[in-house]
């Protein structure tokens, strides 16, 4: 968390520009788009879990809710601007209500995990059962297991005929991710973000200092859901269909794996973890020798056992050890605190 926001801004713009130039030369933009969207989804959980300490097993619920909201609204309205806004607001409001219920009940990690998991399951089961013609919102049929196809995809605001698709859509998604990344950075630099990290470290102390822990956790939870909802809407536009599988437990599991592998408590980690693992999965999907799920499971187990802090923090500390010029005292201090962590953790 060193350096200023303007340095962040410049670095993000430069890195984004370089990636926007190089990546389409290596991977097709169609695949890249979904990697970018998954990156945003990873960032949404990375924010609330890595910086707020809220382990949500149901981040897929907000992702799916965003996608469904977009699809239903797009069919009814026929233009994509308002549905995009709704797709961010609806998951955020849903998460705020759910979060208020949980945090004001002072539920902690395991129970939080169970409730978010259960809510995801409820949505999954409900969406799967909405096959009949009686399940209609406006003009949009819910379609049950088959999902909702054929809605208006993203267009230039105010001009429903001008679709944004293909390469252009990739650039829209990438810029959206960069903007969200900057907003998250700004949020984490603000006093709200610092207090959120404080709550993650020691909830009791923060509440004794006079901060309303419950309200702050609820707001953070809703923010994460809003980002996941945006990712969901972008995903709906990319896939041009939404199905109940967006809510599935497998989807939730994947988001958690991305964060763990990429690195918790960093902003870049979840994004890189998401894009990297999604690409690995894409490559694995092209061979039939070994089952895909098996390898993902193995990756998760190995990371929890051997690299529980994830790739990005490990690389950062490797960099510091090799190239950093730190006074000796600080290294000793770091080592001592790491030992202490090992004793108590």
């Amino acid at each position, binding site marked *: 968390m060193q350096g200023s926001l303007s340095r962040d801004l410049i670095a993000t713009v430069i890195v984004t520009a370089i990636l926007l130039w190089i990546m389409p030369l290596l991977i097709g933009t169609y695949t890249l788009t979904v990697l970018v969207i998954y990156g945003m989804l990873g960032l949404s959980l990375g924010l609330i879990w890595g910086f707020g300490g809220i382990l949500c097993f149901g981040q897929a619920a907000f992702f799916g809710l965003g996608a469904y909201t977009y699809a239903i609204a797009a069919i009814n309205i026929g233009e994509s601007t308002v549905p995009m806004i709704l797709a961010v607001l609806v998951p955020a409001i849903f998460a705020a209500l759910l979060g208020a219920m949980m945090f004001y009940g002072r539920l902690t990690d395991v129970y939080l995990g169970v409730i978010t998991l259960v809510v995801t399951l409820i949505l999954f089961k409900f969406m799967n059962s909405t096959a009949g013609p009686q399940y209609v919102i406006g003009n949009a049929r819910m379609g049950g297991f088959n999902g909702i196809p054929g809605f208006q995809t993203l267009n230039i605001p105010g001009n429903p005929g001008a679709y944004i698709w293909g390469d252009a859509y990739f650039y829209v998604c990438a810029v959206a991710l960069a903007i969200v990344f900057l907003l998250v950075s700004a949020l984490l630099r603000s006093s709200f973000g610092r207090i959120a990290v404080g709550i993650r470290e020691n909830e009791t102390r923060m509440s004794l200092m006079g901060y309303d822990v419950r309200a702050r956790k609820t707001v953070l939870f809703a923010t994460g859901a809003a980002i996941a909802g945006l990712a969901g809407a972008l995903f709906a536009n990319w896939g041009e269909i939404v199905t109940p599988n967006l809510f599935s437990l497998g989807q939730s*599991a994947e988001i958690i794996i991305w964060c763990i592998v990429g690195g918790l408590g960093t902003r870049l980690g979840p994004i890189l973890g998401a894009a990297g693992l999604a690409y690995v999965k894409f490559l694995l999907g092209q061979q039939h020798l070994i089952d895909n799920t098996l390898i993902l499971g193995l990756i998760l*187990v190995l990371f929890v056992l051997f690299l529980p802090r994830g790739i990005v923090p490990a690389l950062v500390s490797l960099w510091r050890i090799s190239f950093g010029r730190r006074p000796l005292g600080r290294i000793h201090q770091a080592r001592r605190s790491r030992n202490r962590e090992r004793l108590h953790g």
Partner: protein
Amino acid sequence: MDLSFVILVEMLYAVASLILIGAGLAVVFGMMKVINLAHGEFMMMGGYATITAVGLGVNVFVAMLIIAPLIVGLIGLVVERLVIRHLYGRLVDTMLATWGLSLFFIGLTTMIFGNTTTGISTPIPGFAVGGYQINGYNFFIIVVAVLLLIGILAVLKTTRAGLIARGAMQRADMAATLGYSPDRIYMATFFCGSALSGLAVAVLAPLVGLVPTSGGAYIAKAFITVIAGGPSLVAGLLSSAGVFGVVSQVFTFAISPVIGEVALLIAAVILLRLLPQGITGRFFKGKL
């Protein structure tokens, strides 16, 4: 009259199956505070073990009650030694590692058995009550669930091994001072928990088809039942399975099976919100 009898049997069956599903997890989570998200896959593998054994010509009851628990218990033992042993006391890490294991096992089973539904036929014929047909096998499941609860209670309360296990779970350091190795006790407990999971789905296998991903259907229910049950093992399991079984069956009969499932999940959320320590955190305190 006939209808109410059928509904009663269905409710008892729902409660019994929740007890079976939750028992293994209750031992592992309730006693060791290890959240085993691979519980569903342990159950799924128990089902496959049964089906394979029956396919090889073993008597179906032997396969269900002996072979399946043994095989799953052994798998559990390997998992405990290789993975979970390193993660005791790190709740979230265990949760994630076992989730990884669950994906791993799903992939493995898909590679071995393929992604198709398999099943075996029920070994006990059904019979008619008035105008309704009742599955005789439901009674078998109810009996197994009752025997299982009595068995767990008896082992924990009356045997020396149960006493040692309970002691080690409360104060591992004290048990170690008295000369018992907590490491081995944890290992044995995890074996028992896994074996119970194996038994559960082996017994349920004739009623439900099996696919490699069917573990997911159980894990949420098992998890909810155990967490809502709270700290006491048997009393918690019995009370939460009772509440959820009745709620889901009432809504199933009143509206539809899907609504029944959803009602169960909503009941769980409400219950956890009102009693975050579980049912036995407030009532039946200090019982087993």
